[in-house]
Structures are given as C-alpha cells and as structure tokens.
C-alpha cells in the first residue's frame, strides 16, 4: 500500500501597483513614459465612451448596454499586449477591449443601438464579433489559436469572459483542448465578483479561478485586475510564451463591476453600497493617475487635456453614429448563406414586395 502526496500546486498572485499608486520597480513591466500615457489615454477614452453609452441608453438613443466601468485596466491592459494580426474574442462587456483594438467607436454605438453592422471588424485587425451567450466564445478562441499552430502562423488568440462563464461547460472543454494541444491562447477571466446577482462564491467553491488551470495543465495566475501594469505584465508574458510555442495561459483579473450588470439591472437589490464604495477606492484609473503623478507623467493640465480630447472624440463618434445611414432591410436576407437557397429566395421576393 502506498499513500503519498503526488502533486503540490501553487497559485501566484501579481500586483505591481498598490492602491496608492506605488509601483514595485522589480516587477514593473517594460513600458516607456509614452506607452504609459497611451495606456492612460486609452482608459480615459474607454471610460468616457462608457459613461456616454450609459447616458445615451437612459435617453433612448441606444438599446440595452453593459458597462465596462471599473474593468478598464483588465481590458485595455490585456489587449495592449496583442498585435493587430492576433485574434480577439470579445464578450458583451468587452467594449473597452474593442475600442483599444481599433474597433471604430461609432460602430460600437451602432452595435448597442441594435445594428449588426456595428460588429464588423475593420480589415486591418482581427476582432471577432461579440458573443452574447456566456462563455460560448472561449472554445472559438482556443480553436483559432489551434489553427495558428496548424497553419504555422504566429498569431495568438485572446478571449475575455467573466467568472460566471467559468461555470459553463464551454470554459472547461476549451481549457482542456487548450492544454492538450498546447495552443497559443490567452484566456482572460475578468472576475468582477458578480454574475448579475450571483456572487462569485456561488459560481465555484474553489478559492481562485486561476487554480482551475492546474487541472487542465494550463498555466494559471491571478492578478490585481485594477492594476494595469500587473494585467499588462501577466498578459504580455503569456502572449510572448504562447507565440514562442509554450502553450496557453489562464489569467484571472481580480476586478469589480462598479455599475449595475446592465441597463436593465438594479444592483441595489442584491449587493451593499459599502462593497461598491470599497472597490471604488481601488479604481484602476485613479490608481494609474496616482502613479503617473508621482513619476511626473501627469499634471492637472495634461489630465484636463486628455479628458477634453476624449470627450471631443466621443461627441464626434456619437454624431457619426447618429448620422449613420439607416440599415437596409434587405440585409436581413443577405448574410444567411453565401448563396440564397430556393426557399429563402422565395421569401425574399415576398419580403421585397411586402
């Protein structure tokens, strides 16, 4: 009879910037002052876009909207590690990631206005359309990364999902394939603590999401998701590894959904104000500002200018959205198949005359 320990596992946590904005220089990723400013400007743009989308929903100028607020660092920091040829698999809360990945802002408004055309990726970047069913995009990202191996390309896939999605079979089967075929896929879990009204502890009894990687032979790490340097560092290392043929990674970003789940939700029904206030203190934008101030990368004039520029861009893009030509009703039929089958043709004729 033998009884012994045959495996011991550890889960790493990474924070570079503390809440006061002090960076651990030994852990600091390689970023120039210009790059840090770019990250900051991207986050401000995302937040300005996001606030505007929320108020436009309230005014009936777009449909339902799911806010990014509080999760800017996780999204902007992650995609900053990607190249344009890499593949992004977004979810409904990934507006921030999409903006930082060159998805034109007016198209995002168009999408939230209920128009398919808003999902079309610009030709020079590989942004997959937003997935609405939770977790369903994760296998696609692994498949795309697998293709990169099979076709001998050096393209990496990155997929976003919430901690709620880790309860879905899709997550587990995707992790499993990613591990077995060692594909260049980065699985980024934005653990914002809530899946609508369901708290993290009802999604999983395990202590972290990151440790779920262990069971699949996938590297897993938990990072402070409101610390853009930690996010960027973890994702960049994972992307570099993946591109070098060293397989996938699961990155759990500890963050928080500051707003309601969506514009149809009222979070007061299920969570306390106090918790929200505590997390608001860890705000990712505030934290980067504190750091930049200390490093003399930011002063009031610069901050004001960044905000003004963001507002100006947002207003311009909103106008572009609102002046965008109305959708052609015939488009409903045009994208079902490469060629319309007989049945559809008949329906199309009837539709055109009706």
């Amino acid at each position, binding site marked *: 009879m033998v009884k012994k320990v045959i495996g011991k596992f550890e889960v790493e946590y990474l924070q570079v910037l503390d809440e006061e904005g002090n960076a651990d220089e030994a852990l600091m990723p390689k970023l120039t002052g210009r790059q840090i400013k770019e990250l900051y400007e991207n986050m401000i743009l995302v937040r300005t876009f996001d606030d505007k989308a929320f108020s436009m929903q309230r005014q009936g100028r777009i449909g339902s909207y799911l806010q990014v607020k509080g999760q800017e660092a996780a999204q902007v920091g992650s995609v900053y590690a990607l190249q344009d040829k890499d593949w992004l698999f977004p979810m409904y809360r990934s507006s921030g990631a999409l903006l930082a990945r060159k998805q034109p802002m007016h198209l995002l408004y168009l999408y939230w206005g209920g128009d398919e055309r808003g999902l079309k990726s610009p030709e020079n970047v590989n942004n997959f359309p937003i997935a609405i069913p939770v977790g369903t995009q994760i296998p696609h990202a692994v498949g795309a990364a697998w293709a990169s191996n099979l076709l001998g390309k050096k393209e990496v896939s990155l997929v976003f999902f919430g901690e709620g999605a880790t309860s*879905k079979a899709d997550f587990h089967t995707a992790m499993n394939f990613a591990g077995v075929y060692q594909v260049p896929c980065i699985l980024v879990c934005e653990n914002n603590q809530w899946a609508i*009204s369901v708290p993290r502890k009802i999604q999983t009894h395990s202590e972290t999401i990151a440790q779920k990687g262990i069971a699949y032979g996938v590297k897993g790490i938990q990072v402070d998701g409101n610390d853009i340097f930690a996010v960027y560092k973890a994702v960049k290392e994972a992307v570099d590894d993946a591109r070098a043929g060293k397989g996938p990674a699961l990155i759990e970003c500890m963050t928080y959904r500051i707003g309601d789940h969506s514009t149809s939700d009222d979070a007061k029904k299920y969570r306390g104000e106090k918790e929200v206030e505590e997390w608001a203190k860890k705000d990712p934008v505030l934290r980067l500002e504190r750091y930049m101030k200390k490093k003399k990368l930011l002063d009031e004039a610069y901050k004001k200018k960044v905000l003004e520029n963001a507002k100006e861009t947002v207003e311009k893009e909103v106008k572009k959205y609102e002046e965008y030509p109305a959708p052609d009703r015939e488009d409903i039929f045009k994208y079902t198949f490469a060629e319309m089958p007989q049945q*559809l043709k008949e329906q199309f004729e009837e539709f055109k005359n009706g």
Partner: protein
Amino acid sequence: MVSMNNVEAVRSALDQALKSDKSVVVLGEDVGVNGGVFRATDGLQKKYGKDRVIDTPLSEEGIVGMAIGLAVTGVKPVAEIQFSGFLPAAFDQIFSHAARIRSRSRGRFTCPMVIRAPAGGGIRALELHCEMPEALFAHIPGIKVVCPSTPYDTKGLLLAAIKDPDPVIFLEPMRIYRAVKQDVPEKEYTIPLGKANVIKEGTDITIITWGSMVKYTLDAVAGLDDVDAEVIDLRTIYPFDTEAIIKSVGKTGRAVVVHEAPKTSGFGAEIVATINEKALDSLDAPVLRVTGYDTALPFARLEMQFIPSKERIIKAINEVMDY
C-alpha cells in the same frame, strides 16, 4: 380574483406550487435574491427559503442536467432558463435524457420537470434574447411544449405543467409579459395541456396562432370589416389540439397559421399538414402561413421587419378569402 399580468401570473403559479407541494423547487440563474431578471420569482426565496428557490451557478447544461437528476429521484424542479436563447446549451440534456428517461427505463424512472424560459421578440433586446424555439423542442418525442398568451392561461397551464408526469418546456412570451392584465383566481387551478382556446369566434376563416402573436393577430382581425375570423390560441404546441383545429376549419373552410419562428420546419408546417390529412375536404382554399423568415432574427433595429406584422397577417387573410 386578482388583476395580474403575465409575469405576475407566473409568480402566482410558482407561489402556489411551492406552497402546496413540498417537493417543488425553483432553480436557475438570479431567481433567488434577485427574484429573476423579469421579477417572475420576486419574493419567493424570502418566503420559501434558499433550499427551495435556488440561485445556481451560470450553466444551462448544469441546471437542466441537475434538474433531471432531481426529478428522477423525487424532487420536482421548475428550472428557469433566463432567456430561451440560452436553451440550446441544455439541448443535449433535454434531447438525450429528459425526453427519454421514461422510455429508456421502460417506465421505471420518469422525469417530471418544467423548464421555463422567456421567449420571443419584439422587445428590442440583444441578440439571442428574442428567439421562439417551440418547433425545435416540439420535434423531440417525449417533450411537451407550452406557450401561453394570457395571464389566466399562464397560471393554469404552468400549474398543469408542474403537475404533469413528463418534462414540459414552458415558453413565456416576453413581449406580452406586461402588455395584458386579466382577472386571475388566487387559488390553484389548472388548464389541461393539449387543449387550445378559441379566443375569438368567427365563421369565415380560422387563424391558428400562439404566444405573443395571439394578441397581434386579434389586433389585426379586429380591423377587418368584411371578414369574420375565428382565432385559435393553440396554448400547447405539443401535444396540440387537433380536434379544435379540425372543428374550426370544418366550419370556416379556410385557415392561416401565424407564428414568429422561421417558416421552414416551423410548427405551422405541422398544422398545415394536419389540416391536409384530416380536413382536406372542408378546405375552400390552401392554408397559408405568416411567419418569420429563414434567416437569423435581426437585431433590434430591423427586428420588426421579421416578426409577422398586422399588415402581413391581413394580407394573408385576404389572399385566402379571395382564393
């Protein structure tokens, strides 16, 4: 009697079922503390506790798979799938297991459970929040499919579904969740599954429809001066009320079927085939269908171009009348 809308009728039925049958549990995403994203289970967890109104992890395949295990062993699950667009994740469990447990075990085990799901379009929701999948599930032998249109029917049919010995998919049209109010008994009552309702009597033409299309069909025929249409609210998609359809068509000699789902292999096809098989001699005209198209349901801005409109319903009625 209490005046209720459709969501309130759902809640009232669940409340009743939880009260009178201790084996009933309600489970799903956000059904507990939050009371459901449409408030269909509001207040029920407070009243019956966390073991009977259960917030689950986010997994439709999990919810339905577990519900099967619960049902087989004596718990009576009423599972909520937050939107019918997320039912496909549970399709394997429904198709391969819920539907077949009775047959596979030669009656030794059964699977009495209800899967509720808000369904249908017309509310400007996001993608995959608007589909009407009745035909997909009606095509699974062993599954019953219900789709009510009025508060009175919603409560009575849901209570009947909960008491039913077999698995039932209960599709709740979101577009009319709050659009109609009706006096509904507070006490428990059931409406038998498989029985249609002649919601408007008429002599010239039979319109067969269900779900939110009932309301819009009634609106359409109300505007017709020279046609006296009979409107049948099918209520249960499977098993469907052949007798009511044949009887009505026998009287009118003409029929139109209206549904939101795509045309090809839609449930309308089944009804037309049944009329052909059983009432061909009474027909004075071919039976027409007014349906969605064989395309993805468009996003909000073009959605109403897809869902049968009043104009399309009237056009079909006139075509059949003029034949």
